[in-house]
């Protein structure tokens, strides 16, 4: 009898006419109709990046250069590629909208002001450097020079990039793996915590770069030394985060799992770790930023390869354009790495999506 009534609970909230609504449709139903002015404004804002891009091109083409500008086509080409990329994005979103898929174009509308600002920023920077020299050349090189030198020196830059990436990933992952093991063991087993905790308390607060001069002296190879320093920083972040995560698991989950037949090992792997996952991943993100700092410092202070070293080396030859080129590459690498981590995190924590905004 009552079992049938349960189904009615579902019917009322789930399978009626409103039941098949998607989040998007709901939003449309409840949204106030946009008036003509707002619609026009939306369109202008979405086209604005193209206009700003064209302004940047005009600025570059028609204001006379303050200094001699080699291969002026490079920057122009880059600008055109960026504008084209935006137009393609716009077209794709528009086609999707025509097919009834709105979120894509809403995202574009949301991002368009930022893209516009980016194009204006490029134009403004070009004006301040190449055109007027308010930012003194060649100390703050114009973008065309940076792009040119990056292209000319690409073989070496790629080499250095690979070296940096190898060092970063080796150090990061060895630190994270060991950190996961010690952190989880510390969180779960009182005895392990007894022995590891003092080490964490003692070594933890030391900023990673402090180790670098010592490693330079002690380590058999600088590469291995640098890996150690990067790993140490990551290890610390991950250990602390996963230890806290595991020891904060609600005891009632363990009890429930035990009455459901989970063994000791299963309690660790199927209850403690998944429950601590948000904290663990937080630690992994923190470890990445610590690793990024450590690697840059290590490369600037001793390791004879990699982007940090390249920057330092370029500086000592007064090759400021190369320095900036390396800076951009570093910026791109760290952004991509962080973004990838973020994607992994979202994927693993999708059960949290309803709770954590």
């Amino acid at each position: 009898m009552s079992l049938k009534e349960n189904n009615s609970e579902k019917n009322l909230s789930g399978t009626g006419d409103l039941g098949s609504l998607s989040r998007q449709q709901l939003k449309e139903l409840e949204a106030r109709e946009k008036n003509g002015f707002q619609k026009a404004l939306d369109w202008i804002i979405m086209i604005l990046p193209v206009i700003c891009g064209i302004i940047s091109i005009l600025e570059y083409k028609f204001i006379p250069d303050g200094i001699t500008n080699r291969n002026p086509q490079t920057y122009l080409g880059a600008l055109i590629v960026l504008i084209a990329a935006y137009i393609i994005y716009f077209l794709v979103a528009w086609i999707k909208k025509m097919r009834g898929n709105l979120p894509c174009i809403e995202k574009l509308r949301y991002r368009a002001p930022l893209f516009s600002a980016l194009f204006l920023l490029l134009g403004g920077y070009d004006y301040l450097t190449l055109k007027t020299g308010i930012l003194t050349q060649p100390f703050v090189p114009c973008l065309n020079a940076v792009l040119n030198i990056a292209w000319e020196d690409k073989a070496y830059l790629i080499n250095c990039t690979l070296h940096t990436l190898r060092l970063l990933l080796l150090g990061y992952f060895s630190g994270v793996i060991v950190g996961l093991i010690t952190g989880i063991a510390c969180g779960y087993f009182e005895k392990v915590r007894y022995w590891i905790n003092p080490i964490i308390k003692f070594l933890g607060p030391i900023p990673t770069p402090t180790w670098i001069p010592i490693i330079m002296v002690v380590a058999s190879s600088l590469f291995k030394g640098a890996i150690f320093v990067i790993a140490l920083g990551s290890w610390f972040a991950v250990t602390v985060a996963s230890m806290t995560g595991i020891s904060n698991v609600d005891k009632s989950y363990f009890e429930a799992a035990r009455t459901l037949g989970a063994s000791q090992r299963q309690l660790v792997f199927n209850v403690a770790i998944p429950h601590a996952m948000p904290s663990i991943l937080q630690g992994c993100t923190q470890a990445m930023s610590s690793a990024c700092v450590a690697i840059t410092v290590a490369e600037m202070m001793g390791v004879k390869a990699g982007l940090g070293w390249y920057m330092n080396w370029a500086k000592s030859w007064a090759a400021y354009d190369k320095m900036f080129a390396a800076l951009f590459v570093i910026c791109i690498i760290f952004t991509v790495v962080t973004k990838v981590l973020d994607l992994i995190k979202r994927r693993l924590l999708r059960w949290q999506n309803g709770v954590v905004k």
Partner: protein
Amino acid sequence: MEEKKVTLKLDNVSKSFAKIENDEVTHALNEVDLTLHSGEFVSLVGPSGCGKSTILRLIAGLIVPTTGTVSVDGKPVTKPSPERGMVFQKPTLFPWLTVEKNIAFSLRMQGKLKGNEDRVHRMLDVIGLDAFKDDYPDQLSGGMAQRVALVRSLINEPDILLLDEPLGALDAFTRMNMQDEILKIWYEKKQLAIMVTHDVDEAIYMGTRVLVMDANPGRIVEDIHIDQTYPRDRSSASFVEYRNRILNRLHFGGNS
């Protein structure tokens, strides 16, 4: 399939807890003797601190008795087992698993999931939440979550079903619905069900037997068999009589 008949015996069981802040020891349970059989639905009522949850946790094997033994068919209970399914007041569903995977958890832990997926679906059918199988527990209402928790332990077809105030956190309507649901599930298999509750009406409505407990030290003070057929009428004369008797025993029976 013929249901397995079991006998649960608590033999002179005491349980004391040491307090954390000082050396004092509280006696949660004092020399309890109890014999229960399959087919019984036993309600434990009593004031807080009378050790009713402690009895349940001892039977589950989550804690060990200070003295005495808990045994099922003569075998002493030393650790938790899926044979003795437990439902807690909080649903304790694993928030990182979908409803379906929560229900399948126990089979997976025991390595029995392969070939038994139909059992998971049958459980979803029993509680009528098939449409929610891919949802995460945070998206469920309290009643739904507790239903999932119930079938999560029922999937093992436990000989003994331990219910630790499973309906305590639910609103009155959901609560009454779920009383009937639990009874229906129990009536089909007639396993031994033991339920802790604060609610005297609930204890009488559901139990074949009501054990009244008192605190300081925790003990069973009265063992009442409810001779009524299901479903029971909460307003019938004999129901009211049982209620008065129990309330009196709990020292709340001032006006009767």
